[in-house]
């Protein structure tokens, strides 16, 4: 009982009202002939499209593929980014040698590598993962590196006075102290991974939600194109919420707020 009340009060009613208003204006403008586009479906048509793709079962296969690519690509990007970020954060020498390369590579729009990935791996999942991992790596790497260099020198001295080994210092001091920064990188990377997966599916790997959008566009079904776009948006919201709540679980006491 109490739980339900909590959820109801947490819902942003004014925010939802704005969205509803936008949809209503869209619907009315089309029906009243105020806006005339051949291939712009009304929200009601998109809703019917959603029901259609949900009913055919195609939606689940497509969504599952994209979800799988995003999660796998993101996990690989986070793992690689955290390891590289820790190494770079820990070693001044390594930073001196690598920082210039990072600053050159990082601002490059990662999606520009898509044709290269296509040449290397063909129309495949590997191609899609490469397109996801390379750009999604940077936010994690840079944030982890920044978080490690930002760990207060005092904490390292605490590790020394208690004669902690290198592994203990990493596990008990550096990683938890850098955790909030790593998390920021991981969340940025998650958002990026979804965008990249959809684009990779549009231009390369012919499966998943991104391909579905292109497929329905070629089938001249704008209502289904929009329905799939809605699904992609929902997937983004769900992934972000899942990550946020997974992190909130062990930090419910509010330690994250104070850890920096």
């Amino acid at each position, binding site marked *: 009982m109490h739980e339900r009340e909590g959820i109801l009060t947490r819902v942003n009613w004014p925010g939802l009202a704005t969205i509803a208003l936008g949809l209503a204006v869209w619907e009315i403008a089309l029906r009243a002939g105020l806006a005339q586009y051949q291939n712009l479906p009304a929200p009601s048509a998109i809703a019917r499209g959603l029901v259609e793709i949900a009913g055919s079962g195609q939606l689940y296969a497509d969504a599952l593929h994209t979800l799988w690519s995003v999660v796998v690509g993101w996990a690989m990007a986070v793992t690689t980014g955290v390891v590289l970020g820790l190494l770079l954060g820990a070693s001044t020498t390594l930073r001196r040698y690598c920082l210039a390369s990072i600053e050159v590579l990082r601002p490059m729009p990662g999606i520009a590598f898509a044709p290269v990935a296509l040449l290397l791996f063909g129309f495949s999942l590997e191609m899609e993962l490469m397109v996801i991992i390379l750009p999604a790596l940077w936010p994690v790497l840079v944030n982890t590196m920044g978080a490690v260099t930002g760990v*207060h020198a*005092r*904490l390292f*001295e*605490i590790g*020394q*006075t*208690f*004669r902690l080994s290198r592994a*203990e210092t990493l596990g*008990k*001091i550096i990683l*938890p*102290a850098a*955790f909030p920064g790593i998390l920021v990188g991981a969340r940025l990377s998650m958002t990026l991974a979804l965008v990249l997966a959809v684009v990779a599916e549009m231009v390369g790997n012919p499966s998943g939600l991104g391909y579905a959008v292109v497929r329905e566009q070629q089938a001249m079904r704008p209502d289904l194109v929009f329905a799939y776009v809605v699904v992609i948006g929902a997937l983004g919201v769900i992934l972000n919420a899942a990550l946020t709540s997974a992190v909130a679980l062990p930090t419910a*006491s509010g*330690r994250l707020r*104070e*850890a920096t």
Partner: protein
Amino acid sequence: MTAESPDRSAAAAPDLVFSCRGVSVELSHTDGPRRVLDDISLDLSRGEFLTIVGPSGTGKTTLIRLLAGLTRSTRGTVDVNNRPIDGPPEDVIIVFQDYSHALLQWRTVARNVALGLEGRLPRGEIKARVDEALRLVRLSAHAGDHPWQLSGGMQQRVQIARALAVRPAVLLMDEPFAALDAMTKAALQDELLRLRDETRSSVVFVTHDIEEAVYLGDRVAVITGAPGRIERIVEVDLPKPRDQIVTRQLPRFLELRYLLHHAIGQTEHA
């Protein structure tokens, strides 16, 4: 590290924990190396409470970091248990002034205190040691709290408990009470003296507060100048246990206080 020279080991007394001979320290600055300590010779006996007092900028912190194995000497020798120091020595724990940076903010009080014991003792033993250390600093009721939920004085007690939990032979304290209000400070001073009596640890305590140095110490080393030198070492022949009101009104306390003020002031005006 080379083997210790025979004359030095022969001269070393067995009950000395630390022995510094002619120690100088230079720290690198943007404008090249700067000498922070000059020709320091100082001993710490087992069970002794040595306070080091001096104005800021005289290298007090560098001296205690030297003993903690966090800073290296440029010249001279530092021996710990009759062997040349090489990194942070076993059974020597330093307690820092800035408790908020020294505590692991993501860990509970109990888990902070357990830091030096994890992986070295069985679980049950760790719990017993943590409970004991928290009892000693009167924080048993806050074992499950996080540091940021505690007051400054309580956080500093967590840091002290964490040091005590490993049962160190020597406790190095770098102005541990400097950031605390007068009442908390007095309470912690008495707590520290009581803990020393219970644990039999040796203590090196750095402070810029002359009264604190006299009240706590068995001996007071006065450090002055830049680079810092030991100006004088004074035996504190005040009765124990010390008492915040009685001890501080003893003529001998006032005498010692005057003596130390004079020792510090002399070089400041020279």
